[in-house]
């Protein structure tokens, strides 16, 4: 056995085996989506015939409002991504740079809030939004604006925390120099902090986008109407319990829904991994 084999063979064996494990479900979904029968049962792991029936069904079958689901998801996740960062950035700036009474308690409260999974307060959120519905039906339980508000609140803790970490890393000398030149807090924020932070704001908002796109249970509780559902809730309801019947279109639908997320993720890899080591876990 040569030295190369001794040192590297096991690395490739591990690499290939784990690659097979990682790729198997993805490969299966792809061949299912182009399988003309659309059935869960795969007669051969090598496709014999290619058809785009399943994709066509998604866009043409009126019982599957796939495009509406996709649109809902993009609008909801997009709005949350932008607004939560706009609101979160200013709070993060205050926590990191400005002096005020109760800052210490504020930070501890924030720390507590950002590690509290919204899931735990599910019953409370449900009851509160049911009551909001009583007097403001447009933004209570069962509505997209209501869900959006809940998402905004939920994203706030983590976003402020992440952004605060970033602001902390900007050298304070910049602020002090600006202050010497007579800049107000507002000016420091808009003229120094925001231009420096734009790449980070973009990353945090894309992370919020992925997180919201992936959120299932609140959306499921809030959005009952077929046409108001997000893609996650829609596809789950569509496949739920009927794997054998709806597998083909589901496979096609999940590929289309996953592609944008995978692309965002891969292009942000570097930033996300930095964020990961800061202690946040993707949901």
């Amino acid at each position, binding site marked *: 056995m040569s030295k190369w084999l001794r040192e590297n063979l096991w690395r490739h064996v591990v690499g290939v085996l784990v690659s097979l494990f990682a790729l198997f479900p993805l490969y299966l979904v792809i061949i299912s989506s182009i399988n003309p029968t659309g059935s869960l049962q795969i007669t051969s792991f090598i496709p014999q015939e290619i058809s785009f029936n399943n994709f066509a069904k998604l866009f043409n079958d009126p019982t599957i409002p796939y495009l509406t689901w996709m649109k809902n998801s993009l609008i909801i996740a997009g709005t949350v991504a932008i607004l939560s960062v706009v609101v979160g950035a200013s709070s993060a700036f205050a926590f990191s740079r400005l002096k005020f009474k109760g800052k210490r308690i504020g930070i501890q409260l924030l720390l507590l809030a950002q590690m509290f999974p919204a899931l735990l307060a599910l019953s409370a959120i449900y009851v509160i939004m049911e009551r909001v519905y009583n007097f403001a039906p447009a933004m209570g339980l069962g509505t997209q604006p209501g869900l959006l508000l809940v998402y905004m609140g939920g994203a706030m*803790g983590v976003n402020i925390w992440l952004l605060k970490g970033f602001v902390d890393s900007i050298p304070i000398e910049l602020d002090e120099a600006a202050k010497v030149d007579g800049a107000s807090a507002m000016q420091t924020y808009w003229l120094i902090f925001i231009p420096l932070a734009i790449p980070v704001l973009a990353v945090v908002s894309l992370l919020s986008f992925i997180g919201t796109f992936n959120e299932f249970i609140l959306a499921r509780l809030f959005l009952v109407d077929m046409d108001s559902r997000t893609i996650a809730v829609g596809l789950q309801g569509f496949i739920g319990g009927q794997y054998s019947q709806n597998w083909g279109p589901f496979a096609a639908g*999940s590929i289309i829904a996953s592609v944008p997320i995978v692309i965002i993720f891969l292009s942000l890899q570097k930033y996300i991994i930095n964020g990961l080591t800061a202690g946040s876990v993707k949901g």
Partner: protein
Amino acid sequence: MKALYHGKTTKFAKYVVVALVIAILAMLVQSAFASHEYEIAAFLTVALIVIAIVYLTEISIPFKFLIPGALFLFAFVIGPIVYTVVMSTFQYQTGNYISKPEAILKVQALGVAPDKAGTTFDVLVGRNSANEYAILASDILTRRYFISSSTSKTELFPVDVEVNSDGIAQKGTGFTPLSGEERLASDQEFAEIRFIYNEPFFIKLEGSSLGAVNQRILEYKSDRDVFVNLQSGDVYSDSGQGNYVNEADKEEILQPGWRSPIWFSHYIDLFTNDKVRKPLIGVFIWTIIFAALTVLTQFSLGLLLALAMDRKIHGRRIYRSIFILPYAMPSVMSILIWGGMFNTEFGAINNLFGTDIAWFQSAIFARVAVIVVNLWLGFPYFYLITSGALQAIPSELSEAASIDGASPRQIFSKITLPLLMQIVSPLLVASFAFNFNNFNLIYLLTGGGPSSPLDGDIAGATDILISYTYKIAFGTNVQNLGLASAISVIIFIIIASISLYGIRKSKVLDSFS
């Protein structure tokens, strides 16, 4: 550029936005008050006042930055946390969902029964002379006729009515029958009217041409806060658990009940009531095993990969991109896909291995499936982390050890691994806390099953605390929001202590302690 932050236009725009927000909040406050949602109205009022003070004066610059985020946090994170704690001290479940005054009205409405003789009248529906909905009732045996509405009753003499061959009045003085169409449209309303008879008796319609004499049997005595059964004389009093209970027979409960404060009963039940405690302990143990096994398997595979790739081998970049894919996929989609793959009859797993395992029908196989799927979802995370950590360990250490004659195995176990663990242990803790509440995986893959609903037990073999709590709160049979909230509070205490421990280890708090 500077003008933008001091200019008149900017200031004007600011006032417009603030005024708009205040106006919207004021409208919401007003309608919340009108709908008796006082707690929410109070919160919105406070928010309105704070916004007005902070943005219309120069009291505090930092608060101008803080307020929007803080309000969202209070409304949708801290508010619900407090509300969860409050709900956990209430009897709050199906049958105890409304407030006490509402429950009293409902009990009164439901507390009726036919009179003992089962008296009925033939009736015709229409309007009386005051143009109210009314009935023209006929007793064909005694030839007694009367018009009755919900507010008045008029006896008619036989000369005032025209009867058909059966002796049922068809027309009467001061009574206008409804046309067929009107009759159909008002069907629902008629069914709910209590037509006057002799107090405490009244007439209810049964079908379109029959009126039955009913009696109010439950009377609310507001001075003693009890219901009295007028037929049997039984007294029903407030049990303190959100229901009126028969004083003579504690098993007999009036429905509906109301959400009533019961303080720590739910918490005491969690520890002492076998019906609650037994399934909870089972679920709790599995939650710990699940989270621990998940972290262990994900970390081990991630570490193995990181070690294998810790050298510039051919195709390393390709391997790396492949390994990241499961992590980049939206997890909801991945879990649903795996659900199909574990299908017994047609699933790819049984197909691939030539087995015939009913994965989600057997407790042990379902648990294996959950762990395998979670391994797939999470190993890339630990691969990324550990390979990063390996690079952070200075190579001088292992070089020095190897000069001293240490074998590669010794270097790994004595130097690399301990250093690595020091770096990643806070992340292991965080991952444990995250998986402790990994609701999506359980809910979407197995639904918590398999379970044996025959024993009346809603906990399944793969249910973790959070999915079990969800079933208690939003299940199909009984929805017990109070008990679910109590369990949520317990989970939060566990998670908060785990996370604080992790944070202390990673010394995030250093910056402000």
